[in-house]
């Protein structure tokens, strides 16, 4: 699905991501760990090609196509979706205005998703204007569920979300990544559902809470702009939780 080769990224002339290599296979979910300021969000923004993030070397391949120099919206059209950590407020533009561009869904689906995510009261408001932390996450997910991307880049889905809402967010991401067996299987046997499913995810988390909802396939640790570890996400999370990121640096299997 996605392959990143030797990617380095600079902001304002300063390199913040160094020689990143990463692969996400069809249908797989990769978790990205790393301390504050290590460059996790920057990596996501570089994948979708936002202007501040200048590629100084390397390549981004999506669905066998080199997208390194494509404008953002064209990358999105190829099947990438992003859930922003801190999306901007846009005055006078509401979710419905944006949804019109998101593609294939009908009004009924729109309403039932809005209901599921408990964002019905936000549909006509200026997007993100005065939204609570949880409301921002839920409206971001509504947009992604309407967009139905093949690769979802999800930045801290659980930060600022209360215990009750985390279940909701977890369910929504599960649906997005086609991990909700009954919803997507069409009564296919599980083995066929696996084969058919291609939705992939790259999820950034600090709390690890999302791991309780989504079966993840791989974990990566990013420290100071470098990927220092790759492995079982549950094991990595456990290590970080108990011993901190320093333990990953000591291990540094990627050296």
């Amino acid at each position, binding site marked *: 699905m996605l392959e990143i080769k030797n990617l380095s990224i600079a902001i304002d002339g300063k390199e913040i991501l160094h020689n990143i290599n990463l692969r996400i296979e069809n249908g797989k979910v990769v978790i990205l760990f790393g301390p504050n300021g290590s460059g996790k969000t920057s990596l996501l923004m570089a994948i*979708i090609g*936002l*202007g501040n993030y200048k590629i100084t070397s390397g390549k981004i391949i999506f669905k066998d196509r080199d997208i390194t120099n494509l*404008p*953002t*919206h064209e990358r*999105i*059209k190829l099947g990438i979706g*992003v859930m*922003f950590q801190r*999306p*901007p407020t*846009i*005055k*006078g*533009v509401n979710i419905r*205005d*944006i949804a019109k*561009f*998101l*593609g294939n869904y009908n009004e009924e689906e729109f309403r039932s998703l809005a209901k599921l995510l408990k964002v019905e009261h936000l549909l006509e408001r*200026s997007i993100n204007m005065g939204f609570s932390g949880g409301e921002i996450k839920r409206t971001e997910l509504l*947009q992604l569920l309407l*967009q139905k991307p093949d690769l979802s880049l999800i930045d801290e889905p659980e930060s600022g979300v209360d215990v009750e809402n985390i279940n909701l967010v977890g369910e929504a991401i599960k649906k997005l990544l086609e991990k909700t067996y009954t919803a997507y299987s069409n009564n296919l046997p599980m083995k066929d559902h696996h084969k058919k499913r291609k939705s992939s995810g790259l999820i950034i988390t600090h709390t690890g809470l999302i791991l309780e909802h989504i079966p993840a396939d791989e974990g990566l640790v990013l420290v100071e702009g470098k990927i220092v570890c790759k492995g079982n996400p549950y094991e990595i999370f456990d290590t970080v939780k108990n011993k901190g990121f320093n333990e990953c640096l000591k291990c540094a299997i990627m050296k």
Partner: protein
Amino acid sequence: MSKMRNNEVVEKKDIDLSQYKVEKVPEYISEVDIKKLPEVEKSILLHAGVDLENDKADTFLMKNQTVVHKATRQSGVELLDTNEALAKYPELKKLHWKLIDPNTDKYTKFVYDNPESGYFIRVKKGTKAIFPIQSCLFLETPSVVQNVHNLIILEENSSVEILTGCTSKELGKDGGAHLGITEIYIGKNASLTYSMVHNWHESVRVRSRTAIYVEENGTFISNYVLLKKVKDIQMNPIAYLKGRAARARFNSILLSYPGSFIDVGSRVVLDAPDTSSEIISRVVNKGGKVIARGLISGNVSGVKGHLECQGLILEDGGEIYTIPQLNGLSPDIMLSHEAAVGKIAREEVEYLMARGINETDAVGLIIRGFLYEGLENFPNVLKQEIDRISDELGAKGY
């Protein structure tokens, strides 16, 4: 504010009126079938919000100085040529040239001293007009000055929506001038929604003088839209809220292009207890100079007013001055203002692009959002044209 800056702000563009021809107002006019007007003209009018095919509106059409069509099918609503009305009802002299002093400035005086023409609208006591009245002031010949004088009277407990579309043909480099006087009287409990689109050719120069008198519990709502490039325009309507609990709201949308000089404001005098007003304006500047004024004067206690002006500069070289003024002449009044001028945030454009929206559409969406946010109940006929132009502005990049 320094003195020099102040002088710059009040800069006025003078118009030498001697360069324009004054047309006579004909004595007798045969009615034109507006549905049979050439398609080109219909389309020009449509862009100014006036739909001649619309059977759900009463229509008034004036070309240069000549009223060519006026028809109302609504009982309790009168729609006449101002000159005709003055001849028919001599008592109107008590209202004509009373809210606006002919000596206000040379443009007002020019209209006073020369033949003038315009619409007279009266809504009778208790009449709630079902259909809106659309009136079009059309400048069709180069080098002509159009002297307009409109008179609107809403009697007690009446209401109506009036849409005025001011527009012109391609007038070449000679251009034309539009001098407009409008006097509006709103009686007790009456309500007027007064929408106006200015969609001029880029060689046209405009001076518009409007005054509104509002009695007890009356409502005046103005929606003003300046969509296309204009050479220069200066207007600053004033509403006098004279009766208890009278309200006025001015919504303005101004688009400015390179070479335009726009000096547009709204003024409200809160002259009776419990009166209130809001002045909201949005300026999108793609070039040219815009002065956006607002003045609310609170003369008695217990009145409320809010003034808000926001500007968006799309290109370097465009200028927006906002001049919000609040005049508190009594304790116990609530007046506030907000003004902000900025650029489109790159971050907002990119957020929309991250939803698969191309840059053009993203900028269009942001401009539209900027224009409508906070403008309550903006008429749909005006929105269509604004939407179209927002998309165009997005397409031309930012």
